[in-house]
């Protein structure tokens, strides 16, 4: 599970326990060195510069070690009577230090063992979950594939039916149009119908839109005009950039869109053909 909470809380919960244990140890040890060492909180809140080279395993010396601090040189030489007391204190300190160290090592061993068990258990759990997820995913995928195949087959059949009907309708429409055109052409000098012009414009626009690879910088608000000259067969002869508020990426992309679309489609009625086109690129979003 990718949840960040879990990811962070899992290792952290363990470490929090460890941290508490460490604090407890340090609290015990602190009896001996609180006066000569800064408090634990301060020590780890400070700015610690670690000069270990990055390619080497990081040092593990961050933990504050409660090593007994040697008496400083600045302490005046002890009086003979006081010397015994000093030695006794030193011995007591050493004994206490040993005990604390042993205790600490025992705690650390126990903590490590516990951490390893915890980690093994978590790992097994994670593995089990991953396998479950994978199995579920696989099952869902198989199911989805089967359904997709069925949907695709149905879609194909429907599309085929639609296409057949559309073809029949188009055929009928072509016949009717031919009849109409023949009738119209009987009247000398008849103009190309508005419907034919609209259709030609639409065919040209669709062809160019399919060829225009929009660059990232082509946003809404863009408006660029191209003046295009085509030969009678639809071959693009020349593309000239008019007014354009786009960058170089836009200018190159729209110019190439027209060249890529060459040869441009021919109109149903040859009389609708225009040698010169004014093409305005203005994306809606």
């Amino acid at each position, binding site marked *: *599970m*990718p*949840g*960040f909470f879990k*990811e*962070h809380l899992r*290792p*952290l919960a363990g*470490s*929090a326990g460890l*941290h508490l244990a460490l604090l407890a140890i340090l609290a015990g040890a602190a009896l001996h060195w609180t006066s000569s060492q800064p408090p634990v909180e301060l020590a*780890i*809140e400070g*700015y*610690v*510069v*670690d*000069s270990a*080279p*990055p*390619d080497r*395993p*990081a040092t593990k010396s*961050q933990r504050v070690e409660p090593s007994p601090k040697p008496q400083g040189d600045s302490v005046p030489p002890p009086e003979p009577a006081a010397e015994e007391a000093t030695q006794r204190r030193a011995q007591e300190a050493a004994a206490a230090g040993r005990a604390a160290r042993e205790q600490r090592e025992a705690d650390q061993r126990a903590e490590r063992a516990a951490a*390893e068990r915890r*980690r*093994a258990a978590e*790992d097994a759990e994670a593995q089990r979950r991953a396998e479950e997820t994978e199995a579920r*995913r696989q099952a869902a995928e198989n199911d989805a594939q089967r359904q997709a195949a069925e949907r695709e087959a149905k879609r194909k059949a429907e599309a085929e039916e639609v296409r057949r009907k559309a073809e029949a309708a188009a055929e009928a429409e072509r016949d009717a149009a031919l009849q109409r055109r023949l009738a119209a052409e009987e009247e000398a000098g008849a103009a190309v119908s508005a419907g034919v012009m609209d259709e030609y*414009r639409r065919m040209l*626009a669709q062809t*160019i*839109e399919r060829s*225009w*690879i*929009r*660059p*990232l*910088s*082509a946003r809404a608000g863009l408006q660029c*005009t191209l*003046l295009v000259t085509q030969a009678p067969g639809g071959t693009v002869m020349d*593309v*000239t950039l*008019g007014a354009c508020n786009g*960058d*170089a*990426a836009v200018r*190159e*992309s729209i*110019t*190439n*869109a027209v*060249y*890529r679309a060459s040869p441009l489609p021919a109109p149903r009625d040859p009389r609708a053909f225009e040698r*010169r086109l*004014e*093409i305005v690129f*203005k994306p*809606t979003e």
Partner: protein
Amino acid sequence: MLLMAAASEAQLRLDITQGVRDAVPIAIVPFGGQAEGATTEVASVVANDLRISGRFAPLERRDIVAQPTSGAEIRFEDWRLLRADFIVVGRVEPDASGLAVSFELHNVRTGARLLSGRLPTTQGGLRSTSHRVADLVFEKLTGLPGAFSTRIAYVAVDGRPPAQRYRLIVADADGYSPRTVADSTEPLMSPAWSPDGRSLAYVSFEGKASAIYVQRLASGERVRVSARAGINGAPAWSPDGGQLALTLSRDGNLDIYTLDLASQTLTRVTTDDAIDTEAEWARDGASLYFTSDRAGSAQIYRVALDGARRAERVTFTNSYNARPRLSPDGKELAMVTLDRGGYRIAVMELASRNLRVLTTSTQDDSPSFAPNGAMLIYASRERGRGALAAVSADGAFHQRLSSDQGDVRDPAWSPFPPRG
């Protein structure tokens, strides 16, 4: 005048309101001065960069029949037949400083030269110079700066518990030249790039408890900036690089804090009883986005850093939205969302709150925008192992970054390198 005349003569006017999102076909001709199979072939690096971006479809090497190395040698009709829209040619030459890479970009359809340049380099610097060429070509043809000279940081995990090894790795954006910058037997996580790209902040458990380090990449020098009782997690840099937002549990439960790096001043930002984590700074540095489960499940909130610090909820679409990461222009927020039963990467436009789910697998995590905003890198799962993947910001192009480094996770894309 000429334009007016032409315009008035044109009799058919068309409006183009849409285009397609195909990859642009482009020929990257092998550079002169380089034997085939050279250690770093400029043309291969450039072609691979452009291919990874998803915006370009470089011609296959076997389809490149002629080998012009300058604009004058290009026979454009050949390349039109190969249906390339653009062509890059160039050569590697000895130079006073070592080597120089000359290159030109031409429009195959019009023959126009769009770009030419000469970049001094060395044998060792040839790969990064190639990325520069790809950056410039990308920018000229898409209108956005290329991000091929940037880097990615991620964590690789080898071995099985209890003998695991965690490495924090910095590699080129194309995955090449990986370099281990930190290495530990305890978990490393959540790398975050400083705004100048020179340092990484990250979480390390190397002392058996979590701590946050800031490491200079050039020198390797490291500073432990937070090792407070409990959890120290999810560092995020302020836009000016002077502060880190952190997740700490020192006051009981997880809350967001800011830490001034110079003065070490710690400021608590959230006080809710819920889990507040994964901070991300707004581009103006005046507010933080973060994840919180205060409403019962993880959602993203925003809190202003001055005044009453009242958090406002930002996400409402799905039952789980976490790990907010802002786009470079600050207008979009990438996140992990629970979408139809899977944890997926999504991008929300902040103004409209419109959410686009970009990925289709079920365990995606840790989205991070490329500094040009065109792509995101994220962590995914592949056959039970962590893997890195990238997706274009519109969700159209998907890439997997293959890795021989075991289990990889926690990717973070660097900012643009400082120029000069």
